[in-house]
C-alpha cells in the first residue's frame, strides 16, 4: 500500500497542492457543501458525499497543474463567447495555465460544480468568497458549471460530452508533443449516453492513452437509483470491451484510488470506476433515498434535524442559517 503522500510520477513542484492531507481536503469539501446547503435550504449534498475523495485526490495529489491565472475571487459573468466580446474567458484559469507539461481536467457532470468549487477553495485555488457567489445572478460561479465558471474549461451541462472533448484534446496534445494528461471527472449516469461509448471507441482506435477518467459510480441519477431508471449492467466489462483499461475501486479509499491510477494502459484510456456511497459521511441523507440528486429540505424541522445530524458527523457546529 502506498503511504499517504505517494510519489506519483506526475507530482511535480506544484506549489498550490498538498498544503494539507487529502483526507482533510475531502472533509473540508463536505463541510463547505454542507454549510452551503444549510444556508440555502438545499444543494448537491449527495454529490459531496460520493465524490469528495475523488476531487480531493485529483487536485491535492494527482493533477499536475500550474498556478491559477485568474483572481482568487471570481470575476462577475463577463458575457458569452462572441466575436464582439473580448472580455470572455473560461474558468480553466483556476486550474492553471495551458502549458504542454500540465494536465487538464474536465468536470463532465456539471451539476457537481458546487463540489468542484469547494475543492478549489480547499486546495487554495479560489477564495472562500467564491462560494458565496454560487448561483447568484450576474455571477460566473454558476449552479451548473459553465465554461466561464471557476475550474471549468468547457460546457458539460449535457452529459456524455466530456469524454469526447477530452479525447479530441488529448489527441491534439499528442500531435503537439505535450506530456500533460487530459483528465475527466465523470459520473456513472453518463454511461447511459451513447456518446460515452463512441468516445471510448475513438480513444481505443487511435491509441489515445493520455486520457484518464475517474467516474463517481454512486448509482444515482436525477430520477433515483440508476438500477431503477435504466440498468446499465457491468460498466467495467463494457469499458474493457469497448477498448479502455478500467479498474474498480472503493471511491472512498484513497489508497485504492492511488493504486488504480498506476494501472498499465498503453494505447488505451484509463477509466477508474470509483464506487461510492451517496450518503457517505452523512448517513441521515439515506432518509431521502432514492431522490438524492438535489436535496431541498421539505420542512424547517427536517432542515434542523439534518443540520444537527450532519454537523455531528462532520465534526462541526450546526450551521446558523437563521439570518
Amino acid at each position, binding site marked *: 500500500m502506498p503511504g499517504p503522500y505517494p510519489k506519483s510520477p506526475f507530482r511535480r513542484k506544484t506549489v498550490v497542492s498538498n498544503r494539507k492531507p487529502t483526507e482533510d481536503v475531502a472533509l473540508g469539501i463536505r463541510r463547505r457543501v454542507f454549510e452551503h446547503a444549510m444556508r440555502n435550504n438545499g444543494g448537491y449534498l449527495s454529490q459531496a458525499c460520493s465524490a469528495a475523495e475523488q476531487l480531493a485526490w485529483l487536485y491535492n495529489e494527482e493533477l499536475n497543474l500550474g498556478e491559477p491565472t485568474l483572481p482568487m475571487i471570481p470575476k462577475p459573468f463577463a458575457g*458569452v*463567447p*462572441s*466575436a464582439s466580446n473580448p472580455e470572455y474567458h*473560461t474558468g480553466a484559469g483556476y486550474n492553471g495555465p495551458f502549458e504542454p507539461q500540465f494536465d487538464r481536467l474536465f468536470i463532465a457532470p456539471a451539476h457537481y460544480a458546487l463540489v468542484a468549487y469547494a475543492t478549489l477553495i480547499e486546495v487554495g485555488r479560489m477564495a472562500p468568497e467564491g462560494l458565496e457567489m454560487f448561483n447568484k445572478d450576474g455571477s460566473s460561479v454558476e449552479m451548473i458549471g459553465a*465554461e466561464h465558471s471557476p475550474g471549468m*474549461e*468547457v*460546457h*458539460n*451541462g*449535457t452529459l*456524455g*460530452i466530456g469524454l*469526447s*472533448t*477530452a*479525447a*479530441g*484534446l*488529448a*489527441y*491534439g*496534445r499528442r*500531435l*503537439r508533443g*505535450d506530456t500533460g494528461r487530459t483528465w475527466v471527472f465523470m459520473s456513472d449516469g453518463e454511461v447511459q449516453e*451513447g*456518446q460515452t461509448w*463512441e*468516445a471510448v*471507441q*475513438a480513444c481505443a*482506435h*487511435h491509441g489515445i492513452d493520455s486520457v484518464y477518467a475517474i467516474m463517481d459510480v454512486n448509482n444515482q441519477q436525477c430520477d433515483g437509483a440508476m438500477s431503477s431508471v435504466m440498468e446499465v449492467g457491468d460498466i467495467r466489462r463494457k469499458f474493457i470491451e469497448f477498448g479502455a483499461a478500467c479498474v474498480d475501486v472503493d471511491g472512498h479509499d484513497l489508497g485504492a484510488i492511488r493504486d488504480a491510477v498506476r494501472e498499465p494502459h498503453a494505447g488505451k484510456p484509463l477509466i477508474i470506476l470509483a464506487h461510492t456511497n451517496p450518503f457517505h459521511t452523512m448517513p441521515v441523507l439515506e432518509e431521502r433515498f432514492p431522490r438524492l440528486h438535489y436535496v431541498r429540505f421539505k420542512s424547517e424541522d427536517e432542515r434542523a434535524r439534518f443540520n444537527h445530524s450532519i454537523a455531528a458527523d462532520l465534526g462541526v457546529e450546526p450551521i446558523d442559517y437563521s439570518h
Partner: protein
Amino acid sequence: MIEMVSRPYAKAFESFAAGNPDILCLSADLTSSCEIDGFRDRHPDQFLSLGMAEQNMMSFAGGLALAGFRPFIHTFGVFMYRRPYDQLMASIAYPRRKVRMMGFLPGVTTPGGMTHQAIEDVSVMRSIPNMTILETGDATEVESICEAADSIDGPVWCRVLRGSVPRLFDTPIKVGEMRELASGEDVLIVTSGISTEEAMRARAALARVGVSFRHLHLHTIKPFDAQALLDHIGSVRHGVVTLENHVTEGGIGSLVAETMADAGVGKRLVRLGLKDTYAHGGSRGYLMRHYGLDALALVGGIEKLMGAKFDITEDDLAAARVDEVHSLVKAEAL
C-alpha cells in the same frame, strides 16, 4: 457549354490542407463520398477516421480545436447536425471553436430521401449564435471553400457540392459579399447553391419576353450584408423572387423576407423552395422539377410576382445539365 469539373473538392482540399499541420481532416465513414480518400491515402498524418459516431466526432473536434488545431469535418450535411446537434452547439458553436463543417449533399442533391437530405440545415445554422454559413454554387466556389472557411475566426458551416460540378464563376468566394450576376430593373432574383444555375438557365428566355432581371447569388448566408441587399431591392420595380435548395422557412427566402421587413420595404416577395415538405428519393432533376426548385419554377415565380404570363416552356430554357448518375464521379449516388 458549361465546363464541368470532376471532384473539385478533392483537389481543392488537398491543395489547401496538405502540409499545414494545424489542419486535420476528419471523416465519419464517408471518406470517398466526401472526396477525401486521396487525401487520406497521401496524408495519413493529417487524417482521422472517427467512424459512424457523429456525436463523439463533434465534441472530439471541439477538443482538437482546444489544442489549437483547425479540424475540417467531412460527412453528409444532414449527419453533421441532426443527430449531434447538442454536441455541435456545446462543443463547437458556443465556444467559437475553429471547426469547419463540410456538409456534403445539400438539399435534394442526393437520391437518399429524407434521411440523407439536409433541407433545413441553413435554417438551423442561421439560428445558432457565432455560426458562419457558406454555400457553394459552382466548381470555383467549391475550389475556394476551404480557404474561405478557414479565414473565419469561429465555426463555419459549409454546404459543399461534389462529383461533377459546373463552373459558373471565375472568382473565388469572398466571405461576406454577394455575386451580382445580372443588373436588370424589373425583378430581383436571389439564389444560392444549385438554384443559381437554374436561374441562369432562365435568363435568356426571360430576356426574350422582356423581363429585365437583377440576379444575386449568395455564397455567404451568415454574416449577411443587409444593406447591399436592400440597395438591390431598391433598384428593381416589382419585387423579389428567391429560389433555394432548402425549405423556404429559415433559408434565404426567410433571410430576404426578414431583411425587407426589418427595413420596412413594401415590395412583393415570392419565395421558392421546398414548401413545408420533406422530399423523397430521386434524381436531382426529377426532384427539382417535382418540388418546384428549377428554372421553370422560377419563371412561374416571376409570373406570379409580376402578374404576367410569359408562355415560357421547358424548351425555351437553356438546357438542363444532366448528371450521369452511375458515372465514375458519383454525381448523385451515395
